[in-house]
């Protein structure tokens, strides 16, 4: 009987809570008109279409709508228009609302507030505080927002503070590094030489430097490729970076990579050879058409095609007289490329 009574009690409590939540939803639907009204009032104001001094959003519903509409507009526009939106938002007190939201218990609210507050230079200190938020997404989001707005702390401080590459392995670390490179490339280059920085963080830094097109980092990467022998996570990304940079100082490292025992490295090096137009790799790439791993055969075929006439000659020669596996790879690469 106790079980029966307990089940009835729990069921009644759950259904009661459901009724309360339903009532809350009904009330919320009634507030929708207010929310929409505030959006209509604020939209032209934020875009600068209304010049009179407006009343800041008053109630919680209005403040909520104001924060949302500001974020949406800031996401939609760029350049001077965005500056105008932010100036107007400041005029009607939006940063104060965002300050409140940055202390919300809801993770998404805090993250959105951090991203938005970083756009207001006077409020960057609050975003700096959020770099110590208990939630990792908020911490990283705050760092990204600060970096995008050229207000980030020094690169080394961020790497150590957020545990970039150790506790925090998100791919967004690469975006963060890219933004840091734009402002202070020397600080990011210094990370590569810092023994206290993890390989993963160095990789992100390297990717960012490679994407920036700053050619002077290539020798350093080639050196790292030599010292990172056997590191299957690091090496392929190093070769991808060398492929993107295309600097001659990376060529000997790429040629070495084509003979690496790990297939992931051979495939990445083959791709880099194609991107660099490395003609002296044509012979080795021809051999790699017979590699036991499909990815290596595929990348070798693609690279040969990119090398132009000499690479295509190699492909045609192997397609006619190479070993069975290589012949098939060369034939199919030629078919595919000719059809493309």
């Amino acid at each position: 009987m106790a079980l029966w009574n307990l089940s009835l009690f729990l069921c009644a409590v759950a259904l009661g809570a459901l009724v309360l939540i339903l009532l809350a939803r009904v009330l919320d639907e009634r507030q929708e008109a207010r929310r929409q009204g505030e959006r209509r009032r604020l939209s032209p104001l934020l875009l600068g279409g209304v010049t009179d001094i407006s009343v800041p959003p008053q109630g919680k519903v209005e403040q909520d709508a104001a924060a949302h509409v500001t974020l949406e507009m800031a996401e939609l526009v760029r350049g001077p228009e965005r500056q105008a939106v932010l100036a107007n938002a400041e005029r009607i007190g939006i940063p104060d609302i965002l300050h409140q939201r940055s202390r919300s218990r809801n993770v998404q609210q805090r993250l959105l507030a951090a991203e938005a507050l970083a756009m207001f230079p006077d409020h960057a200190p609050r975003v700096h505080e959020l770099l110590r938020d208990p939630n990792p997404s908020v911490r990283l989001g705050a760092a990204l927002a600060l970096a995008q707005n050229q207000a980030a702390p020094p690169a080394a401080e961020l790497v150590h503070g957020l545990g970039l590459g150790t506790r925090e392995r998100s791919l967004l670390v690469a975006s963060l590094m890219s933004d840091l490179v734009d402002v202070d490339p020397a600080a990011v280059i210094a990370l590569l030489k810092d023994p206290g920085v993890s390989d993963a963080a160095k990789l992100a830094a390297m990717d960012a430097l490679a994407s920036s097109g700053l050619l002077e980092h290539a020798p350093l990467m080639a050196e790292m490729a030599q010292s990172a022998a056997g590191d299957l996570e690091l090496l392929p990304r190093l070769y991808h970076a060398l492929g993107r940079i295309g600097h001659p100082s990376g060529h000997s490292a790429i040629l070495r990579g084509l003979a690496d025992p790990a297939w992931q490295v051979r495939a990445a090096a083959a791709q880099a050879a194609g991107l660099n137009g490395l003609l002296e790799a044509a012979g080795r790439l021809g051999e790699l058409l017979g590699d036991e791993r499909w990815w290596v055969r595929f990348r070798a075929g693609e690279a040969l095609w990119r090398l132009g006439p000499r690479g295509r000659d190699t492909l045609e020669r192997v397609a006619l007289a190479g070993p069975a596996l290589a012949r098939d790879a060369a034939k199919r690469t030629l078919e595919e490329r000719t059809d493309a």
Partner: protein
Amino acid sequence: MIFEPAVWAQPWMLEAAQWIAFIVIATGLAQTAFYVVLLAYAAAALSSRPPVPRSATQWRRYSDQAPPIAVIAPAFNEELTVVESVRSLLALHYPTFEVLLVNDGSKDRTLERVIDAFGLKRVGRFIDDSVSHATIRGFYANPELPRLLVIDKENGGKADALNAGINAARSSLFCAIDADSILEPDALLRVVRPFIDHPHLTIGVGGTIRIANGCIIDAGRVTKIRLPRNFLALVQIMEYLRAFLMARLALGQIQALTVISGAFGLFSRQRVVEVGGYSHGTVGEDMELVVKLHRHMRDQRLPYRIDFIAEPVCWTECPEDLRVLGRQRSRWQRGALECFAKHKDMCFNPRYGRIGFVGFGQVLLVDVIGPLVEVLGYILVPLLWAFELLALPWLLAFIAATFTFGIFVSALTLILEEAQLRRFPQARELAVLALIAVVENLGYRQLSNFWRLKGWWQFLRREQGWGAMSRKGFGGASV
């Protein structure tokens, strides 16, 4: 309350009756307790990584680092819907992706329709041969649509078609979908998030599937969310809520997820190749793949994550008549049993950690023992009480375990849904679902267990095949 047993009852009969009732009630209570724990984990998952509300925000945050994805869509006899499906896939919002439509030996004009609609021509393609599949007859593409490749192959079933797609994929990630499902435009960007957050660990991610019956659909997109009027479709909405919002989200949080729906799942291509791709000869190839991945990573002692995201990413049409629904449920049951039998050595095996104890424990409790014991309870407990072999409290405890606690769990799921996600636009819809949460326990739940028992029978007889799944299609508003 004094119990007067039947005058003809022997002591052993009374004892046996009480044991039967005890087993049935204990199983029901264990299930309820497990569900409540899952709900707590689901709530924790939602609060630690709440869904991003806006697509634009999602794009701003993640598009720069989003890795390329190959979307693999197997199609078999889908001439009526295939062109619209492909159009909808090509319009997905994601920085770099390729759609691989695999025509699995359709007997209708599926291939011709796609070729005509997109101006495709036969092309060469150098593909991998790591996983096995039936012979590929040709590849079709159009240089002006570089994101689309059609693979025409001999019929081999869904798993076989997916394997062909895996071999042809050139991205580190692939997304397996049903060609007749509708993806949210930002589905890939939402589901890829665990691969961005934990790129060194994540090997698979599932996303929430929602029921499209009743919704307004235009040009391959769900434009207005509405509840269906069909009772069976309404009940299935509650079932999907429990399955995805409660069970899968929580199991993902515990890192003991055993299923990523075949309708939508994102995987590391390399890891799937390492386990030999999808298995042939099973109707539960989606569950089998996830279990194989767990086994592989645990055997190799490699750290990994298989995650689940709460955001709705995919819409599917659910059956609206008893015959088709029954067949689908029997097939799902059979798939779970096949997978459990094949990997039974993982169950409660310390080598497999939480997947062996929590993941397989859940399959054992909910899929293997659950329907057998519950159906036994429906038949025996009321009978034993009617024949005065059981006292009334036993009957009430049985009703508590199977009915009132069922309502309790469903109500909690709806509360969680409303508190964290709010995917039903109007209060009225929430009220309808609250009513369904109560009503489904009176009749539908019993019927569903009967279908699952049928699945058990098919499993024992080693029956194969999927059975026909007739759909109304997404051509217009389906009400």
